[in-house]
């Protein structure tokens, strides 16, 4: 039953892909078929996955045409089902949104091709999450990367888009290369490519291989997830894609890296050495902080959101890192708490980041710019989009009572408990990570004050913003659906935790949710006696009651005494959009405080006639340096290009020479490569 739903979901996606390709000439039909298939497939996959989470045994599907070691096997165990249900929820909303979003492209772009790659991406994602054979996994992984590449480069007439697409492709393949080596090492030990044969295998390998494997998988999956320092493609590629694709990329495609890490670190590894967890925790902190610090400087709305994806991947990795450390120290229950925190945040981020990208997509479609400095006042022109974006902003800032608050609270609790787990100085890592998480969350709130206020509040800063129109009904429906999921994941936290039980049971042998739920499901506790509780339901109830009993009646009464008047502005009359605070100005204090990181550069040219105090025209330019890109990747790129230049010599272009190469390689392989 489960498998039937799941498989039919994939079949619908694949059929939708082919059908929309065939309908390429008829844009309206192509759009309807593409989105309809995406929607149906998502709902089917969602149903199958949700049932699978709660079924006692993992369902295995194997296609009959196996080739030697490679079996086309799908396994819906709790971890896989969790990620594919995440895909189902997000893709449903995005498909709904796309009905309206793609209408603007009709006749101007090849919607058949778009529908093909879009549905292919969805199908390959579902297969990545469920493939239980390394070869099959890598095939799905490559299809995912390539279809994502085609979607990212969809608006390929812009140079920016093309170069971002290429960067994504290169980084993605470098990561896949690492994964291939990792899986081959595993396979050479188990004698099979089946995931079930890898279970707890890594811990039985010699230490050196174990360590090397860990790094291979960490960075192999880390590239896709956007972990610092291999994140550089993400803030380039996510903004240039069409917005529904951006939502899919930031919401779920980067989670394939998180899924891979969870699979390898908690399924293939037994209790790992302590340093591995510490490395993951450290990378998590670095990603979270750098992600949010660069997001603060971004004034391209979608690029800002892309940087926040890096931040949130960092928060997820904090949970994972703590879980790994607890596992190696022998604290099963704490490991479960930390893993739950990480996985919960994974789900939450998929939803609110998807929501924010859809909101950004609506704004960009209405104003025809991604530059926040040209927006403003949209809350009046686009009220529904504004409310949805605000819900996403509150959720991603980790503010109560929405879902981001719950998962960040769980992460704090895990880090807090970590202090008592060891006597060595390693214990200091936990509270330091916790305090940096607090900094990250507060900076994220700062950034989303900017990201909401500058586009949506005050006066419009351009003619386009002043004439923006609210988006169509399907687009609104997609955003409202995700907003409701955000609220449900915040208020229903105690019920949702039960979904995670099978996963911790599968990977750590512990069921934690019963211990985490207090006061008959009303509150959440960290699982220790007297551990302190939170209740998002209680907080919401307080706001609703207080609002209903006091705020509404009083506000209505005071309204009779209120008048609308011009802005006082300390007595300066005639406020125009030019006087408004800009995003650049808003982030200026942080740009100065962290100038060692940003290395800001600015240029001011003023023209004046009489006195320099009364300029007639001013040109202001300011930019920051992306330190890692400039200092590490650019020199590396130069080296690689120089090496490639030198390699030209051996490519003489003569067929005889190439035949000689093949012959020599063959001899060498026969001499050294074949085992006796």
């Amino acid at each position, binding site marked *: 039953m489960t498998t039937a739903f799941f498989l039919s979901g994939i079949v619908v996606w694949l059929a939708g892909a082919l059908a929309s390709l065939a309908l390429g000439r008829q844009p309206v039909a192509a759009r309807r078929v593409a989105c309809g298939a995406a929607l149906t497939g998502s709902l089917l996959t969602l149903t199958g996955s949700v049932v699978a989470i709660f079924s006692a045994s993992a369902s295995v599907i194997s296609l009959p045409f196996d080739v030697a070691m490679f079996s086309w096997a799908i396994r819906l165990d709790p971890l896989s089902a969790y990620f594919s249900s995440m895909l189902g929820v997000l893709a449903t909303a995005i498909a709904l949104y796309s009905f309206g979003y793609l209408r603007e492209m009709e006749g101007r772009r090849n919607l058949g091709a778009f529908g093909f790659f879009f549905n292919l991406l969805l199908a390959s994602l579902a297969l990545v999450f469920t493939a239980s054979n390394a070869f099959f996994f890598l095939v799905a992984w490559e299809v995912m990367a390539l279809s994502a590449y085609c979607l990212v480069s969809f608006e390929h007439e812009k140079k920016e888009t093309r170069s971002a697409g290429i960067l994504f492709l290169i980084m993605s393949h470098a990561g896949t290369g690492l994964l291939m080596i990792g899986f081959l090492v595993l396979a050479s030990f188990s004698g099979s490519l089946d995931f079930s044969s890898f279970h707890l295998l890594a811990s039985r390998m010699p230490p050196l291989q174990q360590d090397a494997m860990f790094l291979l998988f960490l960075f192999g999956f880390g590239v896709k997830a956007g972990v610092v320092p291999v994140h550089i493609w993400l803030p380039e590629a996510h903004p240039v894609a069409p917005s529904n694709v951006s939502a899919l990329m930031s919401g779920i495609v980067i989670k394939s890296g998180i899924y891979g890490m969870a699979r390898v670190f908690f399924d293939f590894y037994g209790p790992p050495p302590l340093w591995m967890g510490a490395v993951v925790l450290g990378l998590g902190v670095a990603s979270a902080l750098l992600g949010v610090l660069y997001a603060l400087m971004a004034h391209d709305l979608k690029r800002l959101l892309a940087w926040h994806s890096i931040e949130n991947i960092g928060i997820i990795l904090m949970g994972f890192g703590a879980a790994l450390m607890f596992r190696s120290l022998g604290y099963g229950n704490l490991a479960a708490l930390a893993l739950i925190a990480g996985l919960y945040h994974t789900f939450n981020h998929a939803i609110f980041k998807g929501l924010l990208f859809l909101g950004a997509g609506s704004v960009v479609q209405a104003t025809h710019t991604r530059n926040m400095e040209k927006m403003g006042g949209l809350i*009046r022109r686009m009220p529904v989009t*504004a409310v949805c974006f605000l819900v996403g902003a509150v959720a991603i*800032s980790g*503010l*109560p009572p929405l879902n981001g608050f719950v998962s960040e*609270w769980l992460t*704090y609790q895990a880090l807090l408990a970590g*202090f*008592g787990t060891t006597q060595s100085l390693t*214990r*200091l890592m936990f*509270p*330091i990570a*916790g*305090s940096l*998480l*607090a*900094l990250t*969350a*507060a900076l994220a*709130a*700062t950034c989303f*004050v900017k990201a909401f*206020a500058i586009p949506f*509040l*005050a006066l419009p800063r351009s003619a386009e913003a002043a004439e923006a129109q609210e988006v169509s009904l399907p687009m609104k429906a997609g955003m409202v659906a995700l907003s409701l999921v955000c609220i449900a994941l915040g208020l229903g936290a105690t019920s949702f935790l039960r979904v995670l039980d099978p996963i911790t049971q599968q990977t750590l042998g512990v069921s934690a949710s019963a211990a985490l739920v207090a006061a008959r499901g009303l*509150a959440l506790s*960290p699982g*220790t006696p*007297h*551990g*302190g509780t*939170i209740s998002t339901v*209680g*907080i919401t109830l*307080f*706001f609703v009651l*207080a*609002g209903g009993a006091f*705020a509404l009646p009083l506000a209505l009464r*005071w309204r009779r*005494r*209120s008048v*609308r*008047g011009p*802005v*006082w*502005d*300390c007595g300066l009359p005639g*406020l125009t*959009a030019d*006087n*408004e*605070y800009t995003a650049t100005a*808003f*982030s*200026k*204090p*942080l740009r*100065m405080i962290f100038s060692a990181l940003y290395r800001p550069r600015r240029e001011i040219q003023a023209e004046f006639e009489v006195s320099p105090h009364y300029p007639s025209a001013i040109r202001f330019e300011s930019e920051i340096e992306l330190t890692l890109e400039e200092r590490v990747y650019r020199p590396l790129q130069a080296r690689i290009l120089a090496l490639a230049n030198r390699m030209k010599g051996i490519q003489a272009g003569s067929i005889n020479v190439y035949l000689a190469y093949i012959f020599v390689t063959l001899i060498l392989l026969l001499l050294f490569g074949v085992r006796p």
Partner: protein
Amino acid sequence: MMERALERLIESAAQLLLLLALAPLVTGVIRTLKARLQSRRGPGILQPYRDLRKLFGKGMVIPETTSWIFSATPWVVFFSTILAGLMIPMVAADAPLGLFGGVLAVIYLLGLGRFFLALAGLDSGSSFGGLGSSREMTISALAEPAMMLAIFTVAIGAGSTGLTEIAGAAIGQTWRFLAPAQMFAFAALALVLIAETGRIPVDNQDTHLELTMIHEAMILEFSGPYLALLEWAASIKQLVLMTLLINCFWPFGLQPTWFGFGALQGVAWLLAKLLFLSCAIVLIESVNAKMRLFRVPELLAVAFTLGSLALVSTFLF
């Protein structure tokens, strides 16, 4: 079960009244003490109440450029501050709404209020509002790590982030606040308190000089009842943070329960401790000059260092 719920309701109502009534008084006392130190008479300790009454009776001007965010903000700020106030132990060690959240929830609820206040600052389009929002968010973000380290120190000692548990663990250990870890954590939190309540040397509550104000700049466009709500919320926030500090570190006088004659004793202790802390704040405000904005990170870095020292001291001593 029903009885317990009813008791909680009574406790919450009592603490709510205390919060609402006491907050303007604390502000008034601090202002009067400060005036006396500057050889002025000052407006009297009841002036904040008169201000509130007057503002609640006035009409409002709502800027044309604003949206519903502007009108919703006073309520969000007011209610989130009150809810945070009901989660802390004031008179009894048992926080009335402790089930709804501990110290992390208190911080994040105050963060929710700040988030909306910063939005409202930008909503009118006035550049003063934007300036205030930008500075407020920056400073509070930088104060966060120090605050969290100090809180971790306290929470590790109590094994909980619940404030009922934290205060409960401290009861009976009257001299515990002299332990190095506690003293460092106290100092770190006190610095954060100064930054968060907009006091000299970080911000000046009394200033309306355009370029130096932070909190005042955000609420510049508010008038009448909404301004009253925001002013009231600001003084409640100040009371909440002060109470948090004194009851986590100096738990003496905290009663086991709200019921009975002991509660009066508890209130008396609370007032005494608040007065002591107010005197300290007044002294700090009177002998310091306001810092340049870009010196504030250094002050917060000191707080962070103190927090780290507190943490290390928990297992060194």
